[in-house]
């Protein structure tokens, strides 16, 4: 139950004085409490846990991380699918 799921905010509204939103999880839409993310806007991505948005996902740093991986050559063919040898050869 600890896994929080990323989704995209599609709609923001008030319900009984509580900031709520509709969040799309790849096709499934759920009502989510946005009270802990006062700055989040429609179109932003967020991590949702037990009906609460707890953290905004920073697309820029996601892409930055991927770029670092890329610079390490992680996505390149030559580093590629073949695992590096573990055993010593005879």
């Amino acid at each position: 139950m600890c896994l929080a799921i990323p989704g995209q905010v599609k709609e923001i509204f008030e319900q009984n004085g509580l900031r709520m939103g509709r969040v799309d999880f790849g096709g499934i839409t759920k009502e989510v409490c946005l009270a802990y993310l006062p700055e989040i806007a429609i179109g932003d991505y967020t991590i949702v846990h037990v009906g609460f948005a707890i953290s905004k996902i920073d697309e820029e740093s996601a892409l930055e991380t991927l770029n670092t991986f890329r610079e390490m050559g992680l996505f390149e063919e030559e580093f590629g699918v073949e695992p590096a040898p573990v055993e010593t050869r005879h």
Partner: protein
Amino acid sequence: MKYLEEFRDAKGVQGLLAEIRRLVTRPWNLMEVCGGQTHSIIRNGIDQLLPQEIRLIHGPGCPVCVTPLVAIDKALAIASLPNVTFCSFGDMLRVPGSDKDLFRVKSEGGDIRIVYSPLDALKIAQENPERQVVFFAIGFETTAPANAMAVDLAKKRGIKNFSVLVSHVLVPPAIAAIMSSPVNRVQAFLAAGHVCSVMGFWEYPPLAERFHVPIVITGFEPLDVLAGILAAVRQLENGEARVENAYSRVVNFEGNLPAQALLKQVFTIEDRAWRGIGNIPQSGWKLSPAYREYDAETRFSVGEIHTVESPLCHSGEVLQGVIQPTECPAFGRQCTPRTPLGATMVSSEGACAAYYNYGRFAPVSITTAEEPACAT
């Protein structure tokens, strides 16, 4: 979110593995604190892909697993009361108490509802003013803000027939307890990303310094876990012990400040017993005096509770990384996900269930020749 696929990229996995292999010169024991990470590691076979020098020790970060037996027994007692509607996250229903579980109470006529969010429980209370609605508020720092909000809303809205049975646990004191244990073998931590998304990681530098242990904030996708392992191994090989954030797209240093503010308002810190592990000082949250009227334990007198743990279950040693699930004699025999003896087999994020569900039946010992299993 197209980039998410790339965090599952197989070539990236091989690249990170190659980098880890290049760096590692000697054996290291790393603990992933969070049950969600354990699940991801076993599902993706990450532990089997790693060079054999790197051992992953599964940590106590599954809230369902560590909720103490006495809390389960209290839940069973309250849920059996005739005027109570007892609401819980679904994975708590099969956790064995001393002599039954919540499913059994349900089959005996108890009004037990599985809810997705504590707000659903609050709604049930508002719609059924003639019933007492109790929510089983368990979980780590990730779940606690939702429960804090439900209690605060109940107070603000004057909802009198709602209460919570609180059993919240905190990660940093558990890290300190693991490092202080005489049987500890953890040399670096992969810290739970989603706990840190709420709490930030300002609590970790003093721990890294005090125990001279690298702590790397880590996500859940295969590349996230491997990037965390790589960062930890790099520090270990260099003799460093820093806090590093390998999950910066979700986690920042301060964490979620509005959530922390409400947590501080609704809860106070107390000592807490962890199932299978025992008491950890200052490791739990209970309702603060201003919210005590919403405490189910005081609202319903549940009397003296005598707990009886299954003598066959070694989940405490599993949760502390002393043994692997397959080293438990009951694993896959008396104990399966259909007939669980311990909470680590009930919860899908528990290490025993992860091993069972992904067909890991062969023991992979993390003990060394000098240290017998079940040393505690």
